[in-house]
Every structure is written in structure tokens, then in C-alpha cells.
């Protein structure tokens, strides 16, 4: 199922990597050195935001890629229908269609991890961190698949990006500690999935206690997104 999308990535690897990396590396430069430097946070702040930016990349490198690809395949190429006509289980369709997002995000995150480790050696790269990247990328790819199957216009997708994805980007503890927010805002942020990827990534990469509730929240979100995708395909609502 994923083969077609992987062919595309293989044939367009430089562009795929570049578009996945420019944003996160700019965040690292602008917030890590620019804002962090002017606040006097220096190296400590860079150590703080590297895991946050990696968490952020699991969202930014997946959602738009997967949702736009599915939207184009559904509404413009009509190849999504063609794929649904094949005798394949729905779970295979869901997993296969998230693969391009997971691979793109994993490649981008590994590069950022290497860059982050070079500029802040205390940020550790471990198999758990890679596993968390794959898990987070899968969860956000499912969200992208859901959006790509649900919307009928590219404008609606832009609206979702503007009202859901952009707020998540800035509020979910990627660039600052959520505890700095007012209590009500912190509680609202806790309900968003990127907050948990961010907290877990920081714990894994900086060697602090792993918040088990964040793992539970990620599992719940992943199961919910997967079930919704499965239901939409099963009931021909895409």
C-alpha cells in the first residue's frame, strides 16, 4: 500500500528532506540562538528546545504531507478510489497511507537530532527517542490522513492548519515550558497531543522521568485517529 508514496519520496528525496528540515532548523536558529540568546538563556535554552523542535517536526513533517497527498489523490488524481477498489484490508490502507509521513518525519528528525547533538552534546540520541519519533509521526500522520479524507476543498485544509496545527506548534511546550502559561491555558494545552510528544521527547533525550500519562494520552489519540480513519473508509465517507 505504501509503495507508491515511497516511490515518490525516493524520486524526490532532496526536496522531501529539504522541505521537512527548513522549518525546524529555522526554529532552532531563531529561537535557540536569537530569542534564547537575547534572554540570556544561552546553552540551557538550546538544550530545552532541541527535543521540543524534534517533537514539533513529528507534526510539521507529517500532517501537511499526508493530508495534502490524500486530498490530491482523492479529488484531483482520483487514485484514492482506485486503491480502495483493490482487495485490501482497511487497516492496511490506513497504515500504508501514513507511511510516507512517518518516513519523512523520521528522516527529518534524525537530521535534527544529529544537529542538536552537535550543538548541545547533552541532548542524547537513543533508540527510545527514534521510537518516540516514529510513534509521534504515526499519530500525526493519522491525523493528516483523517483531514485529507474528510475535507472537500484545499481551503478547508488550510483552515485546519491555521486553526489547529499552528496553535499546537506554538502552545504545546515545544519552545517554552507549558507551566509558564496561565492554569486554564496549561490545562487546555495538556489536551493537545503535541504536548505529550514534547514532554516525552524531553524526558527521553534529557534523561528525566518519563511521564507515563503522556504515553497513555498518545496511545488514546492514536487509537482514536486510527478508528476514525478506519470508520471513514469502511463507510465510504471519503
Amino acid at each position, binding site marked *: *500500500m505504501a*509503495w*507508491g508514496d515511497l*516511490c*515518490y519520496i525516493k524520486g524526490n528525496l532532496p526536496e522531501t528532506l529539504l522541505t521537512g528540515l527548513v522549518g525546524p532548523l529555522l526554529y532552532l536558529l531563531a529561537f535557540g540562538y536569537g530569542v534564547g540568546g537575547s534572554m540570556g538563556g544561552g546553552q540551557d535554552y538550546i538544550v530545552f528546545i532541541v527535543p521540543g523542535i524534534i517533537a514539533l517536526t513529528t507534526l510539521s513533517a507529517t500532517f501537511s504531507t499526508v493530508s495534502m497527498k490524500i486530498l490530491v*489523490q482523492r479529488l484531483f*488524481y*482520483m*487514485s484514492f*478510489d*482506485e*486503491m*480502495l*477498489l*483493490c*482487495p*485490501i*484490508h482497511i487497516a492496511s490502507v490506513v497504515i500504508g497511507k501514513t507511511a510516507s509521513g512517518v518516513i519523512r518525519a523520521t528522516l527529518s528528525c534524525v537530521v535534527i537530532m544529529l544537529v542538536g547533538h552537535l550543538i548541545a552534546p547533552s541532548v542524547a540520541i537513543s533508540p527510545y527517542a527514534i521510537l518516540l519519533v516514529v510513534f509521534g509521526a504515526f499519530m500525526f500522520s493519522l491525523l493528516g490522513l483523517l483531514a485529507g479524507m474528510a475535507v472537500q476543498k484545499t481551503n478547508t485544509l488550510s483552515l485546519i492548519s491555521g486553526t489547529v496545527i499552528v496553535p499546537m506548534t506554538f502552545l504545546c511546550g515545544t519552545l517554552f515550558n507549558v507551566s509558564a502559561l496561565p492554569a486554564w491555558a496549561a490545562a487546555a494545552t495538556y489536551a493537545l497531543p503535541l504536548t505529550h510528544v514534547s514532554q516525552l521527547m524531553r524526558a527521553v533525550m534529557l534523561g528525566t522521568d518519563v511521564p507515563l500519562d503522556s504515553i497513555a494520552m498518545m496511545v488514546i489519540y492514536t487509537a482514536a485517529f486510527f478508528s476514525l480513519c478506519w470508520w471513514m473508509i469502511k*463507510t*465510504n465517507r471519503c
Partner: protein
Amino acid sequence: MPVAGDPIVEVEGLTIRFGDFTAVDGLTFSIERGEVFGFLGPNGAGKTTTIRAITTIQRPTSGRVVIDGHDSSTDYLEARRCIGIAQQHISLDKDLTVRQNIKYHAMLHKIPKRVMEERVKSLSDMLGLGEHMDKKIADLSGGWKRKAAIVCSILHEPSVLFLDEPTAGLDTQSRHLLWELVRTLNSHGTTIFLTTHYIEEAESLCDRVAIIDRGKLSAIGTVDELKDIVGKVTVDVSEGSRTVPYHFASREEAKAFAESQGGEFFNIRRTTLEDVFLALSGDAKGRLGRCSGTSWTSRTAWRGGTCATSRGTFRRPC
């Protein structure tokens, strides 16, 4: 053991609604194994929606579709194994090459690599796709895209092949090549479900034809049976700037009618499927009605101030 003539597709009371709009309204028909079945209708009649429902893409509002013994709503995976479809819009991934699209389809249908390579070679040779195999779909002309889509649709050797306007936009040579392909596939046992706007294509290829209009089945049968509905002989009468066809059961009746027209220009010919199609669909169908008080058959059509029966069209009041 499948036997030619058995129903391979059974459609019962198929209804599809989009909000208040009923796109397909209680269709019931069956397609026999081994036949080429034509599905005709004007734009917006519900042809593509019907195909989407039969091929499991569109969930029907009500009704049932059985494909080769498999209920398409409960046993959809098995039903899908039996069907191939070349959709009206080219539905290949335009970012991939022809070869990659074909390979992708082969993988989705779990066709072994060696078998896939043999089939691809034979089909691409037949359709002349060879030199275009490594071009992206986006870079091909409409005709080559269509051929690539057809290769993908028959790669897994389906029992029933759905071709939704397969020759739309093709040049004459390509159309004839495709007709040849349809005949070859059919001679090897593949049942073909064909929609087209080229009536001569349906007349030439199809064993049976169904005409659908505004979501409802207007008529179904062999081409000859359909011609019987309106009459096998047609008289074209020149009325001012337009030519009006009048249909009759026999040449004698047509001749008698033509002679009764006095000095008006007329032409007597065999009724075509296009005449049948025009009489049974679109606005012409709205003029169909029953004509009492005549000795002719009961099926009638009104054309301006005339009354047309299945045996003929007459100027006298009914």
C-alpha cells in the same frame, strides 16, 4: 462451475441518494457471464454513480449488489477480487511513471512479480505502451493515460471489467485498438460492463444494452430488442429546418407513411440504437405516452402535433 449466461452481476433495487437528490432510483438488472453489457444514458443520468456502487466505491442508500456470488456490502473483499475498473477520469497516480503505477497495482492485487512482468509485456505490446513505460503519467497525452489505466484495470485478470467511457478523448486508431482489446478480453471469458456516449460503439460491441435516464432504467435488452420497442424502420421527414424521425415496425408501413407525406422530403432507413436512445432518454422520453383509439400498439410518443406508436408515428390525432 461458472457457466456462460449465468448472472455474474446482480443488481436489486439499487438506490443512491445525495441529500434530497436521487441519483439512482431502484435499479434492478443483471449482467450475464461472458457478455458485453452496454450501459447508456445522457450526462447526469446516473451511469457513473451506478458503476461506483456496483464496484463497492459508493455505498448505496438501499438495494443490493452481488458480484460473482459475493455480496458487495458484506463480502466486499471477495467482490473486489472479481472486478477491474477503468474509470471515466484517469485515476492513476500522476506523480509516478506508467511502470510504477502498473507495479503498484500488481502489488495491491498480490500478483507475483514474474506473472506481472509477463502480463505487462503482453499488454504493453498489444497497446503499444512500450516506449512510454518510464514516463510519468502527468507527462502523457490523454490517449496514453487511458491505455495505461486500462492495463492497470486488467492486470489481475478480473471476471468483470467495468469500462466507464473508455474511448472518450481517444483518436480513431486508439478507439479501434481498444474495441479490439474489448473483443479479445471478452473472447477469453471476461464479462465487460461498458458505458459510452458513442452509441455506434455500444451497437458494435455490446450483446445487451441498458438505457438509464434520470436514475431509472428505461429499457434493457439486445440491440434488436430495443429497436423493436420503437420500430425497426425509420422515416426521416424534413420539417422546415429540422429532420424528424418516425419509426415503424416494417418497411411496408414506413413506405406507406412516406408516400402519404406528399411532396415532403423523406428518407427511409433502418432504425439505429441512437434512435432508440434518443426516443427513450432525455427530453424525447417525456413525450412518450399511451395512445388509445388506434389499431397500433400501445406504446406511443408525441412529437409536436403527431402521435408516434411503436409501429409508427402519425400525424392524425389519436
